[in-house]
């Protein structure tokens, strides 16, 4: 965010016009990049006071004033990028709205535990895996239903999760998206995870994520046994048991694995990396 601070020396000069005049120049076609940058800096410099005055109003949030001002600068930059002269609105009115919005988002992000939970990250990774596997097999991305089936979710739950995933991206500083939507409103947690008293989505996700993590461990074991393993007699010596006992334990584990593989084809293990590895 520090990169958004206006540079020194971009102060307005005596011959400078008002915000709207500068914006009219900025929106004109055929400007050289350096000229555009110069005008943008002039507009920003003119409105530093506006950003600070708005940030001060949020001082009671407990966040450092400098951070609030930095957030406000993003709103100001968005206002410069998106202000439409055709709308008969003063730039300062428009910019104030966006500056306040950015500061509010910043405070909300800091205070509302919008930390991405581990299980959401796990689910996002699973979604990506299933999408890639499906694309490789069918030459197209999966439909919502196909994706939901593979993840053992309902379509509504998956849609909620995808919205949540977008929201997590959205609240990060994604300049490209912000330039097309300067004041995005992240969905609430209720929108991301609609509550069902019988089986809350978060609970379901946690269970599915646990299955996924277990499947990954399974994969690691199989890889280890086939490619990096110690000999049975070595292990027997280390543990003080016979090689025969070690062998039996390994055989039984392999039986368990074979049985687990029979379940493949549906559910969280389907299409995961463990499938191919285990078959090896």
């Amino acid at each position, binding site marked *: 965010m520090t990169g958004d601070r206006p540079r020194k020396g971009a102060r307005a000069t005596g011959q400078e016009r008002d915000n709207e005049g500068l914006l009219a120049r900025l929106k004109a076609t055929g400007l050289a990049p350096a000229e555009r940058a110069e005008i943008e800096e002039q507009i920003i410099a003119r409105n530093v006071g506006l950003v600070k005055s708005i940030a001060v109003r949020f001082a009671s949030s407990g966040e450092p004033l400098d951070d609030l001002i930095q957030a406000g600068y993003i709103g100001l930059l968005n206002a410069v990028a998106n202000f439409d002269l055709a709308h008969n609105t003063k730039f300062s009115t428009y910019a104030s709205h966006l500056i306040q919005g950015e500061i509010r988002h910043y405070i909300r992000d800091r205070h509302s535990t919008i930390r991405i939970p581990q299980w959401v990250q796990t689910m996002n990774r699973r979604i990506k895996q299933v999408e890639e596997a499906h694309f490789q097999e069918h030459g197209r991305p999966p439909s919502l239903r196909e994706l939901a089936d593979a993840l053992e979710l309902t379509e509504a739950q998956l849609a909620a999760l995808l919205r949540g995933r977008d929201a997590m991206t959205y609240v990060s500083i994604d300049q490209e998206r912000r330039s097309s939507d300067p004041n995005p409103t992240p969905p609430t947690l209720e929108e991301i995870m609609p509550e069902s008293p019988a089986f809350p989505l978060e609970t379901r996700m946690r269970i599915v994520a646990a299955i996924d993590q277990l499947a990954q461990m399974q994969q*690691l074991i199989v890889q280890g046994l086939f490619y990096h393993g110690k000999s049975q007699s070595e292990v027997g010596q280390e*543990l003080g048991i016979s090689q025969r006992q070690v062998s039996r334990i390994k055989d039984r584990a392999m039986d368990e694995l074979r049985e687990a593989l029979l379940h493949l084809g549906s559910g969280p293990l389907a299409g995961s990396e463990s499938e191919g590895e285990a078959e090896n």
Partner: protein
Amino acid sequence: MKHTEQTGDLLSLIGQAIDELRLSIGKFEAADREHGLKHLATVIGSIDAYLDHLESDPLLHLAPLPPGDVRASLSHIREDLDEAMRGCAGPSK
């Protein structure tokens, strides 16, 4: 604690846990919270039991997997399931 063939290895634990977790999803979907929670509790209990003798699991030596990593992963899964149980542990309908 010395490992015996009865105490179970990591692959067995994983296989059973995945089955139990799937069953729990099915129960919760059928609004049978009591049994859904029971399956979750079974998995947590199995993880706890396994953690007690993790270092002596021959599979970890055969693979070989660092016991500390496995313990951390299982503990993390256990915590997640514990949270899941809390999320469903409200009053029955």
